């Protein structure tokens, strides 16, 4: 059988090689999953296969990649950065014009792509107004419209909700059955059992293919996390952190219409809901980045009327995109900013050093923050925001893009700090590994309403 081969590939951005002497073979017409810790070079390998590196960065020191003549297309980790045009329909037109297609085939492919990723309702919506998960579905649809032989997908489901995720993995398996080759990276393994053919594991700059028994073991290991939460008791809602009354969020489409809700103080609340239901928008309202009607109060103070500087010294958000939070150049400078001024008393010098070690960041103190890997950025970002010592932390997808080891590290730190300081934390997440035994309550956003649930 013909194969896609990676032959003794060594690739580096700086002096340190990111990939060292890697040799691999991906069978054509199969579904391959790449797993490994954050920063291990999975994205780099995909970008080399997509022909983007070394053109746009880094250097291939040695070795070759042979796609066996397959037409490829890649979906980036940050889907929002991949679009030239304003709407999905325009983007698909642009792409198909690039490929030299005529109007007839455009209509067929548009219908097929929209159906595949279930984006019929999003076709003419501006991409900038979409949620992270919606953008990922649109990015996938563009690849489907391109009808390539080889799909290179870099964490395509990181912000996609569980229902859509299961659906899309199923769809990808069907594509494979039609003869397409799929190479995909992910940190979450559920949904893949029985669907992927090959599993490759990155470890210490090396990649190994695992045999089918180990593959099934790994893929079934973390299936089905059972969630069980109590409903908040009356006494916890007596002096709440946030109170919503007749709150409406309507940025173009109605996202939230809430008559009464209190969010308890000093507790950790998990916030879930399908893509595009408005979870991030609620955070935007809470951080004065989105206007609302009705009332949203923090500590009996209307958020819209609160003085910015004063309010943000109490309430902070850990953004979905880690670099949004950085203010300086190197890791060391960033830490210095967070230690200045109001700072979390829990993090003494020793505790900070221990935390840096715990997050594997000690060796990166002089590195430019923008050159850290995706997972390292996320870990640093969370540490910085814990150092700042806010009473309220709104955390948007803290775990997306992190491997299990990093999730354990980050959650251990969050738990310690929250326990010591009694912060009010609201977490948006699509993945529950590790969160099920940390969060106190679970709020679900569905049909424009927030409700506390027990599962």
């Amino acid at each position, binding site marked *: 059988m013909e194969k896609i081969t990676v032959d003794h590939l060594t690739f580096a951005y700086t002096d340190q090689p990111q990939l060292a002497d890697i040799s691999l073979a991906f069978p054509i017409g199969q579904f391959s999953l790449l797993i490994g810790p954050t920063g291990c070079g999975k994205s780099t390998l995909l970008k080399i296969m997509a022909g983007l590196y070394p053109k746009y960065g880094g250097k291939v020191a040695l070795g070759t990649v042979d796609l066996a003549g397959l037409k490829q297309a890649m979906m980036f980790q940050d889907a929002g*950065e*991949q679009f030239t045009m304003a709407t999905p329909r*325009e983007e698909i037109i*642009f*792409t198909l014009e690039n490929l030299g297609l005529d109007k007839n085939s455009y209509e067929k492919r548009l219908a097929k792509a929209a159906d595949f990723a279930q984006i019929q309702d999003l076709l003419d919506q501006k991409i900038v107004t979409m949620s992270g998960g919606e953008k990922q579905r649109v990015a996938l649809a563009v690849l489907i419209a391109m009808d390539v032989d080889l799909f290179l997908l870099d964490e395509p489901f990181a912000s996609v909700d569980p229902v859509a995720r299961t659906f899309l993995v199923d769809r990808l398996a069907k594509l494979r059955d039609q003869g397409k080759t799929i190479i995909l990276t992910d940190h979450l393994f559920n949904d893949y059992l029985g669907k992927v053919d090959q599993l490759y594991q990155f470890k210490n700059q090396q990649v190994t293919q695992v045999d089918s028994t180990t593959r099934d073991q790994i893929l079934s290991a973390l299936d089905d996390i059972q969630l069980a939460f109590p409903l908040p008791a009356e006494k916890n809602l007596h002096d709440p952190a946030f109170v919503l009354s007749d709150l409406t969020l309507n940025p173009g489409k109605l996202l939230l219409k809430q008559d009464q809700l209190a969010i308890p103080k000093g507790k950790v609340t998990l916030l879930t809901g399908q893509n595009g239901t408005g979870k991030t928008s609620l955070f935007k309202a809470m951080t004065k980045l989105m206007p609302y009607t009705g009332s949203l109060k923090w500590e009996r103070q209307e958020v819209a009327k609160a003085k910015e500087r004063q309010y943000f010294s109490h309430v902070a958000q850990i953004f979905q995109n880690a670099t949004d939070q950085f203010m300086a150049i190197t890791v060391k400078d960033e830490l210095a900013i967070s230690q200045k001024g109001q700072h979390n008393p829990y993090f003494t010098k020793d505790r900070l050093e221990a935390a840096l070690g715990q997050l594997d960041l000690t060796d990166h103190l002089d590195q430019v923050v923008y050159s850290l890997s995706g997972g390292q950025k996320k870990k640093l970002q969370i540490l910085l925001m814990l150092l700042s010592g806010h009473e309220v932390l709104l955390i948007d997808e803290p775990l997306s893009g992190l491997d299990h080891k990093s999730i354990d590290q980050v959650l251990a730190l969050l738990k310690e700090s929250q326990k010591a300081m009694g912060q009010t934390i609201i977490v948006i997440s699509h993945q529950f590994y590790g969160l099920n035994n940390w969060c106190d309550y679970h709020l679900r956003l569905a049909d424009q309403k927030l409700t506390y649930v027990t599962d």
Partner: protein
Amino acid sequence: MNPSLKFLLTLIISLELSFRVSLITNLIVCALALIFLLYKKIKSKDLGAMLFAAGLAAFTVFTSGYWFSDHPNLWYALDIASRVFVYTLTTACLTITTTAEEMARSLEQNLHLPSKFAYGTLAALNIIPKMAAAVKQIRVAGMMRGVYLSFWSPTLYFKAILVALSSADNLAQGMESHGYVEGAPRSTIVEVPLTSKDWLYFLAGVVLVNLCAFLLP
């Protein structure tokens, strides 16, 4: 009217009236443009803001041409001041009736400009709202870390430039990943028609402006 011809007409009117002193022509063009904008139901807030900004610029031009000139000439000063309104209003007529996508397509299909230019400009336009949101978010993110970034803070612009640079780099990669190859032929799925009616309007516009500019004071 075809977007490229609209663009050319705007350009010709603006250039021609920059070299030719004819206050009355300027006023006629402004009046026609204003009527067109009102007919197209421009938002009064947008129109007001635009006229206010243009008014400020026109006032500055007028003062330097009349009060602070060694040889003050009222007619000439009024002419150069009214030019500001000509530029603003004719450009508004173009932008209010053409989306950026239509413009890019038309430049590529009708004027045969390199696609790199057409789509590069378009992508840059699409980044503008993103940049505005980014600046707002950078300020909030700063406050959350105890760093207050005023509108003249170097950190704010450093961050904004970083966002722009990384967007530009990602955009180049994004375009390439969606099959774009510089200089390669592209097909046309959405056609921008260029009809004889378009040409007629265009030529009529050019002739009228010329007649006015050379006949009227």
